């Protein structure tokens, strides 16, 4: 049937072909197809059209064609579906997509572009170092540049803390004590959004704070069965377990849902929540109480203001080349990446979307400067970056994350008891090692 359809289609198309515009470019300009993935609301097509117009005015002869490609996952699938002759030139994809695409030789390293910059070193150093962690492979190749980055952070109801005379917790013991003090029959002391399909991001902050990061810069190694990993998982699970069952009883069993956690906090149904800094704008607009932000409390991995464990998150800019692109096209693609990651654009984009502007100097210029003066909360996530870890990434990243997410959910939700958790982690580790075998 497909074949018949194609034949019929071919016949009809042959007649139409003359009038159908077949390509995306209309003139002799260098055209950069820029695929953007999004996870925030707003007139993003309008914003990207403005950025493209600004860039084109400064770079005659280059046309930017911004294309909305859906979520990060849809964007990845779109690029993979383009197959052997990709149309994409520059894309925003997850910072953790690096090894997926190195593996398939889609993206190119950017070192030579950086070396050729007049002030390449200064440019490089103006990004928060934590944001480079997911861009550089062990051989030192730079594969992506930060664009829309985030990190988990703790939101607390400052009015409640003031009323009850409780200090904001800085470590896990204080966290549980504060949560217990603020927990009532119609208010959770603490909500951590680990219910659902993606507990790994929040879990990383615990694993890191317990001294057992899942990955540590080497894409061929993933550690999910360390004793500290188990301790971290036990701690996270106990937050939602009732006191009778040996838990702390300060949050919903199995964790809260990602989408519902900010609204529960705003409605006064949770005294503290962990969520992404990307939620701050909405929460500030909706809450009728003083919203406090603090670092995720530290774990046993360090003392005295160390032992923080937050990972980074969000999307980076990648350049694609299947070997067919001209020098001029690649240079234009790089110029566009430099433009989007410039201090001016980062300041503007950060203020518009709530992502953390990735350039240090972008915090000293408008509009971000006045925003942080008015709402100092925005700077908390920035300052936490000094302690941030890389986000989980490895070869076979998608499959390994699926395994980890599945097992984490089993334990956190209570489907698997804590007594069996150790063997669950061992089994998962064996599966992960199997997936990574070919790379070791």
């Amino acid at each position, binding site marked *: 049937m497909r074949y018949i359809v194609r034949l*019929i289609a071919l016949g009809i*198309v042959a007649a139409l072909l003359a009038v159908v515009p077949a390509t995306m470019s209309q003139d002799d300009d260098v055209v950069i197809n820029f695929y953007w993935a999004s996870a925030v609301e707003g007139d993003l097509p309008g914003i990207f059209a403005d950025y493209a117009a600004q860039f084109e005015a400064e770079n005659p002869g280059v046309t930017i064609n911004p294309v*909305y490609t859906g979520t990060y996952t*849809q964007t990845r699938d779109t690029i993979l*579906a383009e197959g052997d002759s990709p149309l994409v030139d520059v894309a925003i994809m997850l910072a953790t997509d690096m090894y997926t695409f190195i593996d398939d030789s889609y993206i190119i390293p950017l070192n030579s572009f950086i070396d050729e910059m007049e002030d390449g070193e200064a440019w490089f150093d103006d990004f928060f170092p934590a944001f480079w962690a997911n861009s550089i492979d062990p051989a030192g190749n730079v594969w992506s540049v930060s664009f829309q980055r985030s990190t988990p952070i703790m939101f607390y109801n400052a009015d409640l803390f003031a009323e009850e005379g409780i200090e904001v917790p800085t470590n896990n013991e204080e966290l549980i004590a504060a949560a217990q003090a603020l927990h009532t029959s119609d208010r959770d002391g603490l909500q951590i959004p680990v219910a659902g399909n993606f507990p790994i991001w929040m879990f990383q902050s615990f694993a890191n704070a317990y001294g057992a990061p899942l990955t540590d810069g080497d894409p061929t190694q993933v550690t999910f069965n360390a004793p500290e990993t188990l301790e971290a998982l036990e701690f996270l699970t106990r937050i939602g377990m009732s006191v009778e069952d040996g838990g702390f009883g300060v949050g919903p069993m199995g964790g809260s849902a990602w*989408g519902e956690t900010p609204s529960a906090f705003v409605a006064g149904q949770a005294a503290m929540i962990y969520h992404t800094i*990307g939620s701050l704008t909405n929460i500030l607009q909706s809450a009728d109480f003083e919203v406090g932000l603090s670092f995720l409390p530290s774990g046993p991995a360090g003392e005295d203001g160390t032992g923080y464990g937050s990972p980074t998150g969000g999307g980076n800019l990648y350049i694609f080349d299947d070997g067919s692109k001209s020098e001029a096209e690649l240079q234009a693609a790089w110029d566009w990446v430099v433009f989007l990651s410039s201090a001016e654009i980062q300041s503007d984009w950060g203020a518009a979307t709530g992502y953390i502007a990735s350039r240090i100097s972008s915090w000293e210029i408008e509009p971000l400067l006045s925003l942080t003066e008015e709402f100092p909360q925005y700077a908390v996530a920035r300052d936490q970056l000094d302690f941030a870890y890389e986000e989980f990434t490895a070869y076979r990243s998608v499959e390994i994350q699926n395994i980890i997410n599945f097992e984490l959910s089993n334990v956190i939700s209570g489907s698997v008891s804590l007594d069996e958790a150790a063997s669950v982690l061992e089994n998962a580790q064996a599966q992960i090692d199997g997936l990574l075998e070919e790379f070791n």
Partner: protein
Amino acid sequence: MNKIGTRRRVEVEMTPRSVGSRNRWSVAADVLTVVMSMLWLFPFIMAIAVALRPQREPISTGNIFFGSHLTLANFERAWNTAPWEWHFLTSVIVVVGVLSVQLVTITMAGYAFARLKFPGRTLLLYIILLQLMIPTGILIVQNVQTIRELGVFNTRWALMMPYWGSAFGVLLMRQTFREIPRDLEEAARMDGANVLQVIRHVYVPLSIPTYTAFALVMVSARWNELLWPLIVTRNPEEGRPLTVGLNQLYSATEAGAQWGNLMAGTMLVIFPLVVLFMIFQRRFIESFAASGLR
């Protein structure tokens, strides 16, 4: 029958107690109907309520339906998210462009399989049946390549062409045509009708309910499709349907669920279909009853 019925009614009317019990039953049936339809309506009503609620008010606070006041702000925000006017245009063009071609192809193929004898008929029918069982997702990469080779990538043609043939439609029309008595065709032939005239004047008019049912299924399938348009088109102006605009709202999950925007966007997108359904409601229901489709 009639007589008995009449007499019974007279008897019933004579005893007040029976009248009461009969009314009770019919009231109970009415209540049940209302309850069932409320169950079906509930998500729709909530969607409207959430869409009209101020964005900052969670559903758990204030009046459950109206919040503190009703507002169109969510619609404004949703409208500003995407170039909806282009999305609407594309969705309408694609639905019309697919359906009009499909009606021709499924009629021709359906007739051929129902009434013509030709070598390989059974085999071809099985191949078409087989196609129903292949999930379209796994063919996407190959289909994208085909679309690019045809030179229609990033045009509305790319959204329409793959659906010009419909295995489901061919089988549906084959079954429908087979149930039409051959005598009718033979009578038409006697009067000198050729194949096309037979199809036009005998088979098509007798199959209108089936066509209506098919059209409804296909229109909503194309209207609601996301993955294919997202991958084979790139610019709203060249042809991206409503679902791509809606996807922008649905993928804004970073800051938690923005129900107000989501529901307002959903209302925008389903509105034309809801209106269409209301206009043709009676006909649709008759078609489904007649064709046995659900």
